[in-house]
């Protein structure tokens, strides 16, 4: 079934004045009023599909405070400060790809984030997109689909948990609040990730948020999205993969082939050469006074220079020769084996 959430029209009463007749209690639990950061109208979201003709309960009179008892869709408590979100590049590539494949007319896509949690950080390792419909005053998210996909994903990686959700677009909207609430049912402290595919300010900004309650305690509580630090985590092999894929930025039709062995060595040495020339340039600048000297950098340079091993030339010769001999021998063996099996083939087919 779909989750359909309806926002009251913004023309409803402002915050302080009690709204028109407090709605008869259709909602089973006193749903905590959630105020999106931008709008000033508190909106109560119904947990189930709001009945057509009812206005969801809007601001209660200050006297009768709905106990923010946080029953029903419980909003999380304060987030331990300074948590870091570590993203893998595959997530972002996935998000961008699903944005490119969005339905006609959809302005953004949303999806679930999966990953693991540990004491100091939250590591997001997987994601999948969830179909949803968004219009002016209604959001419909296919929850069945999300559950199914999560089950399927669990079969492959049983360690991944639902961590939160993502959305493309550069801002948090009212609909985001509602979707966030749904996700807070699936996971404690869900994270919200935004990837700005509309490229505002010429950058694709990637931000993560977690929601916190705000407002005067004892009154209706609002929701605020506080930003989290985003870091990018790579496995070694991922790093290598990303470095390779990044090369398409430089080719005219965005296509690159995979290079062969010696080319790769050549490429790696070229990179080191570039790094070295940058360092050299810096050293010269400092010497000529263009840039002020920085002691930490100086220390790094010192350790760098000291890392080149000093070996007696004879020792080095022996080392080099024995290694070269090993490699040559192995090449010879490999060639020999190949010719052997070719011969065998011929003999057998006689």
């Amino acid at each position, binding site marked *: 079934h779909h989750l359909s959430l309806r926002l009251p029209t913004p023309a409803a009463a402002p915050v302080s004045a009690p709204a028109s007749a407090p709605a008869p209690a259709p909602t089973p639990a006193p749903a905590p009023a959630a105020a999106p950061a931008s709008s000033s109208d508190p909106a109560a979201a119904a947990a189930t599909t709001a009945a057509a003709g009812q206005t969801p309960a809007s601001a209660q009179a200050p006297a009768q405070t709905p106990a923010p008892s946080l029953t029903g869709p419980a909003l999380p408590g304060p987030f331990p400060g300074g948590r870091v979100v570590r993203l893998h590049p595959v997530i972002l590539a996935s998000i961008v790809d699903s944005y*490119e494949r969005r339905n006609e007319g959809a302005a953004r896509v949303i999806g679930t984030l999966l990953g693991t949690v540990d004491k100091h950080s939250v590591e997001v*390792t997987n994601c999948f997109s969830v179909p949803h419909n968004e219009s002016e005053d209604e959001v419909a998210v296919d929850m069945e689909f999300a559950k*199914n996909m999560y089950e399927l994903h669990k079969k*492959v990686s049983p360690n991944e948990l639902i961590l939160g959700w993502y959305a493309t677009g550069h801002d948090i909207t009212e609909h985001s609040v509602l979707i966030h609430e749904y996700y807070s049912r699936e996971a404690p402290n869900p994270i919200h990730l935004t990837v700005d595919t509309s490229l505002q300010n010429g950058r694709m900004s990637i931000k993560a948020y977690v929601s916190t309650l705000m407002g005067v305690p004892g009154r209706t509580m609002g929701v605020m999205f506080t930003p989290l630090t985003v870091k990018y985590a790579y496995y070694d092999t*991922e790093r290598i993969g990303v470095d390779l894929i990044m090369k*398409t930025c430089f080719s005219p039709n965005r296509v690159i082939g995979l290079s*062969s062995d010696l080319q790769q*060595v050549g490429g790696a040495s070229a990179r080191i050469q570039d790094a070295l020339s940058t360092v050299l340039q810096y050293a010269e600048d400092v010497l000529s006074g263009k840039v002020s000297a920085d002691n930490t950098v100086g220390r790094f340079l010192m350790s760098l220079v000291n890392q080149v091993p000093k070996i007696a030339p004879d020792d080095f010769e022996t080392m080099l020769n024995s290694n070269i001999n*090993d490699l040559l021998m192995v090449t010879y063996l*490999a060639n020999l084996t190949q010719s052997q099996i070719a011969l065998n083939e011929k003999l057998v087919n006689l």
Partner: protein
Amino acid sequence: THSTRAQRTPPGAGMASRKEGTGSTAASSSSTGGVAGKGKGKGGSGDSAVKQVQIDGLVVLKIIKHYQEEGQGTEVVQGVLLGLVVEDRLEITNCFPFPQHTEDDADFDEVQYQMEMMRSLRHVNIDHLHVGWYQSTYYGSFVTRALLDSQFSYQHAIEESVVLIYDPIKTAQGSLSLKAYRLTPKLMEVCKEKDFSPEALKKANITFEHMFEEVPIVIKNSHLINVLMWELEKKSAVADKHELLSLASSNHLGKNLQLLMDRVDDMSQDIVKYNTYMRNTSKQQQQKHQYQQRRQQENMQRQSRGEPPLPEEDLSKLFKPLQPPARMDSLLIAGQINTYCQNIKEFTAQNLGKLFMAQALQEYNN
């Protein structure tokens, strides 16, 4: 947004088979979730005109991640590739992993998992057309019966399908190792006949070098992904591991050689078996010949004595024909040895280059 892609229903795609080395044949399933539609002018033609495989960056990252998180030791991880065929290119636009096969999960239905996955992916507009499968490999040992069977069933159903072999160990050494393979048409013929006897193979004239053909790979990214890459480059720390330039080689070389030796042992056993078979056959021929001669002599004697000749006996019942040893296995072993040798040669070439560089550096120092 992508424009609608042409879709065609492959006539029943097979499934990737399970563990390496069990030699189980792939279970073939009903048609995939592909929506029946008109082919884009390429439907099921006789010649596989795919000259190039184009992979999205996303697929590469997903494969890397899958192995990194779920692969251990010599276990292989497998998954399905999704995409479509455009002119002479096979475009792979997405993929999803297959769960590891565990013994206690006996009622796990692979077909159902695949169906559900593809149905769900269709909802979010991801190409849901099967175009192949991928597998990780341990030091390059992927030429096995299991792989052959799986690839055959895939290729039989979908002509252009390829298997992507991802070598995580080689990748960790500095450069992405991803290769696309396909069975040669000759091998396809032989597999279709299911006749792996020596005569059939000899007739088809298959050598181990012509079992798999490699298809060149290119990686392509969309513009938005390129923007993402720029963003990542700005934000992430520079890679601090330059494995590619590391000079240590003995470990890797040792492992490779170990595997090579095992295979060569297998091969020699195979050869011994074949030799014994040949010897036995020739011995049997001789015996048959002798028997026939004796028979003839006796018959002549009997004739001279006026007695009726002995009845002709069925020689084949007396001398049962010997079973020729399976040739397919030795072909596979030869193919595997070839792959190992190729890998070793690549590795040594790289290392020699690095050693010479180190030499030049040291000379400069002195």
